């Protein structure tokens, strides 16, 4: 974009205490050098004298208070370059306070529920503690989290079940930071499961929006799910172990075999669906054996020895 060129900004306006429903207002602002979304909002508020609610503090991708949605994607207003046409809305999955401001206390509450503090059983050994870089390497990246809530706002599982049922990716980043810390001795599996981690559908949207390049799914949620499944605290842990078992036995995973492994006799409840699938010719009852099966078995054994 050329300097001075007009940027079209459409703002979401809504005050829940007086408005029946949200409305949109469109403004034009001149493009400036290195302009960010926050600059455009400031220009509307300060130069055009429009009164509307938006929030910021540090202006340099550290405080995490200025999250908004720009053309449908959650971003930090202070760090996101402007686009020629922008629809700016409040973050999803949180209650709207007014206009672009959402109630981030809901995020803090979700984090608090997980009690992300180091829990010790043994006495504190004194400072500095005997920890290595190797032991801390998974934790360091998570420490970059600025609690802006963009990941939680982008989470499709939170949006269908709500923050009460699933604490969301940000809260699990904060928890993983402690659980993966070698000093933590807390027993976390129940807490992890009870706050809904298995509602996560593995969509990876959280990592796509993180302004600190954390991948909450791979860096926090996967290790925590692993912990709950290996300790068999999650009631459906069998679904995970059965999957690996199926591969080790037949190389491929046949959904019919998998469901039988997981549900056992309860599989009868799936009968109507099974018959319907059979009628449509999509129920895989028997699959030809995988020609690579012997080698797959050998590879799995060899890989397990390496672990």
């Amino acid at each position: 974009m050329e300097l001075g060129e007009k940027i079209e900004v459409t703002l979401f306006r809504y005050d829940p205490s007086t408005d029946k429903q949200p409305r949109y207002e469109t403004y034009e602002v001149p493009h400036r050098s290195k302009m960010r979304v926050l600059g455009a909002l400031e220009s509307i508020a300060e130069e055009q004298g429009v009164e509307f609610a938006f929030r910021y503090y540090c202006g340099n991708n550290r405080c995490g208070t200025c999250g908004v949605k720009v053309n449908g994607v959650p971003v930090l207003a202070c760090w996101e370059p402007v686009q020629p046409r922008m629809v700016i809305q409040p973050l999803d999955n949180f209650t709207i306070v007014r206009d672009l401001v959402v109630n981030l206390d809901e995020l803090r509450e979700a984090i608090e529920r997980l009690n992300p503090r180091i829990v010790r059983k043994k006495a504190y050994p004194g400072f500095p503690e005997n920890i290595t870089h190797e032991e801390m390497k998974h934790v360091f990246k998570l420490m970059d989290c600025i609690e802006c809530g963009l990941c939680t706002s982008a989470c499709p599982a939170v949006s269908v079940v709500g923050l009460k049922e699933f604490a969301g990716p940000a809260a699990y980043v904060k928890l993983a930071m402690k659980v993966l810390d070698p000093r933590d001795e807390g027993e976390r599996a129940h807490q992890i499961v009870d706050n809904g981690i298995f509602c996560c559908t593995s969509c990876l949207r959280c990592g796509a929006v993180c302004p600190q390049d954390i991948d909450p799914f791979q860096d926090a949620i996967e290790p925590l799910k692993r912990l709950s499944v290996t300790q068999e605290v999650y009631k459906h842990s069998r679904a995970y172990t059965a999957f690996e078992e199926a591969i080790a036995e037949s190389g491929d995973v046949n959904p019919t075999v998998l469901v039988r492994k997981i549900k056992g006799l309860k599989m009868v409840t799936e009968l109507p669906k099974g018959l319907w699938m059979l009628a449509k010719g999509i129920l895989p009852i028997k699959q030809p054996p995988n020609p690579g099966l012997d080698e797959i078995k050998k590879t799995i054994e060899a890989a397990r020895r390496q672990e």
Partner: protein
Amino acid sequence: MTIKVAYYPGCEAKTVNEAADEATRKVCERLGVELIELKDAGCCGSMDMRITSPDVAQVLSGRILALAEATGAYKLFTICNTCAFNLVDAASRYNKNEKERQTLNRVLGESGRAYKGTVDVITLPWLLIRLVGYAAVRDALRKNISDLKIAPFYGCHMTRPKTHYGFEHPMKPTSIDILIREFLDGETVDYPSKALCCGFHTLLTEERVSYLSIGRVLKNAVDNGADCVVTPCTQCVVALDVYQGEAVKEINGKFEIPILHLSQLVGLAIGIPKEELGFKKHIVSPMKLMERKGA
């Protein structure tokens, strides 16, 4: 010139979603893409083995990369997004890092295999846009599909994680829209759920989350006037089609909408008879829609 790619259909395409496999083979044959199927390949471990044994799972994906490399094709093509993710994840680990590759090769060496780190993983939109290309697809067009209002559904693991791909925006993908509109002269509907999740990976554990996810995507597509949903991923097809009844019930809806794998739509547009595209192997049959629209 024939394009040669190593072909890894994935478990769903070998079982519940055979239709996608059939259609992909026909489409590739018609467009001059030679598929070298990796018959010895097994499951990539999906999202489940990443939890139970992440290192073993990566080795399984590494083995698939090695099988692909041995064909001499250097591109590994899959029609399942999650397979693509696991394979691309393994490739990002083994292609760049020699130490990791040595660890992999110690395991693969026991079966006399090795991986040199040369394989690129591609999905169907990538194959059609980048390898086959606009001109060749246009030359092959035989049928007008512009009567169909199509809702493209991207699924998750074809565009995310952002560090592993680079083909398109991880939150606002456009490849399938471009394919349908520009390559196939079809009509797409815009709807907000197209880069959300189909909920496949919680179907056997947290059903409600899956049903609500499926229901939201489908309702959103229907509300925006779509006749059908098209996705490049076999797992998305299974979630959106096979579990559609449960999902629509969960959201108290009353509608049904056919779900096509992208290969089936492309096949239709390039004039492959419907009988050869697996159109009968759906829970929500697309046949009525096709008859109504004369496609």
